[in-house]
């Protein structure tokens, strides 16, 4: 089935979060007017990216990363012939022109640059192709998406959207049950760490905002980035009385009939009532 849509409706950070949580493998293809960016993932980690159909060669990536100068690029291109990036990488390492770490760091920067460009796209058709993998001759990396998502979220969110995402500051937060996620590995700023320290199902977001001296916009920005990265989820605050539905037995039809209110009455009676409904619905 399709995983496709428009960035206008489903943002890049939401897509990255989906890829991350679902540990997807494949390529996200995003297009707008004449541009196309392809970002590949392996088990939920960024592995490769390219602009358009043609991927930049390793020498150009190293040149832009200032690991090679123009003369070196020309010389390498003349000698390398039809070498793949993997072969070329080995050659460069063996020639002591660059180290393996420098190659990987340069490629990471290049791939992240592609994703960062996507963050500036507010519109564009996307689809995720499970079968489209990076070309075999290209060097792939493994970049965790959590920090990327947090960074992208910082860049993209505006007040109206934040308000839409977090309609009430009276909700509390709890850490998600996500095995393997270590808070220490996340790049959070001081304000975000401060908010993290107050996350507890007993504290409403408004209380956290007050304690950390944040206005509504600032606290929404921070909380939203945590939610997008799958670190926390919104819950009803502990200890807050649950609002009871109002019983209106006197209302006319279809309210003329006395209505059973699940919030009141005997539990056994109520269970029997639900069982009767289940039997009926099974039979229709």
């Amino acid at each position, binding site marked *: *089935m*399709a*995983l*496709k*849509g*428009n960035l*206008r*409706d*489903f943002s890049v950070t*939401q897509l990255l*979060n*989906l890829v991350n*949580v*679902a540990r997807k493998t494949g390529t996200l293809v995003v297009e707008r007017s004449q541009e196309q960016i392809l970002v590949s993932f392996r088990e939920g980690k960024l592995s490769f990216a390219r602009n358009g159909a043609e991927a930049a060669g390793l020498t150009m990536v190293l040149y832009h990363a200032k690991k090679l100068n123009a003369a070196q690029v020309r010389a390498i291109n003349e000698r390398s012939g039809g070498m793949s990036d993997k072969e070329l990488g080995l050659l460069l390492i063996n020639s002591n022109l660059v180290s393996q770490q420098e190659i990987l760091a340069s490629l990471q920067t290049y791939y992240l640059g592609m994703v960062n460009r996507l963050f500036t796209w507010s519109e564009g058709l996307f689809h995720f192709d499970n079968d489209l993998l990076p070309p075999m001759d290209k060097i792939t990396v493994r970049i965790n998406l959590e920090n990327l998502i947090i960074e992208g979220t910082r860049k993209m969110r505006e007040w109206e959207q934040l308000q*839409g*995402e977090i*309609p*009430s500051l*009276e*909700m509390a937060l709890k850490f*998600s049950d996500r095995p393997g996620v270590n808070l220490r590995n996340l790049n959070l700023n001081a304000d975000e760490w401060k908010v993290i320290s107050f996350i507890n199902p007993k504290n409403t977001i408004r209380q956290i905002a007050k304690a950390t001296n944040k206005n509504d916009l600032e606290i929404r920005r921070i909380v939203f980035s945590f*939610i997008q990265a799958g670190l926390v*989820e*919104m819950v*009803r605050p502990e200890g807050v009385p*649950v*609002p*009871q*539905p*109002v*019983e*209106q037995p006197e209302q006319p039809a*279809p*309210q003329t*009939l*006395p*209505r*059973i*209110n*699940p*919030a*009141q*009455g*005997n*539990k*056994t009676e*109520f*269970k029997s*009532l*639900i*069982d*009767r*409904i*289940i039997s*009926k*619905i*099974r039979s*229709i």
Partner: protein
Amino acid sequence: MQTVKMVVTGPFNAGKTEFIRSVSEIEVVSTERKISSESERVKDQTTVAMDFGRISIDENLVLYLFGTPGQRRFDFMWEILSEGMLGFIVMVDSSRPETFREARNILETFRAYAPTPYVVAANKQDNKDAWEIDDIRIALRLSPRVKLLPCVARDKEAVKKVLLELLYSILEEMEITPSEEGYTSG
């Protein structure tokens, strides 16, 4: 005669009216009006106050299904309709990711009105553009505890399954509620 009600909510054009129509024993009492806004013209009519369906359980008990209007400008009806409900169903159009955020907002709004059990129905799963259930769960940021059910609203069996899952959730909620008297859900 006793009555109980469930609420079917969700964004505009998610399939709420169709869902109720599939199982209601009466012709759905609908308050549909022609759509005036061009941007919302993906169908000819929309619900402006509520839809209303009925299932007679037995001689003494009737289940009412209320469908809420999907457009925000009619959201004053939502709280009224949510009063006293057994639980609610959030319908989402699996093929329109642009409505996922709205579905999430509606879900949060109804959770705030009444902490009753709920399920999410991923409608239009027969559409070729429908997102997979697992992807929708992530997009809607639903915890694994929340039931997200594939659905085709005009398929009676699929609708029955959604209703039954909501009822099972209500029973499960009761099991974890300690007090015998004064039962409260949520």
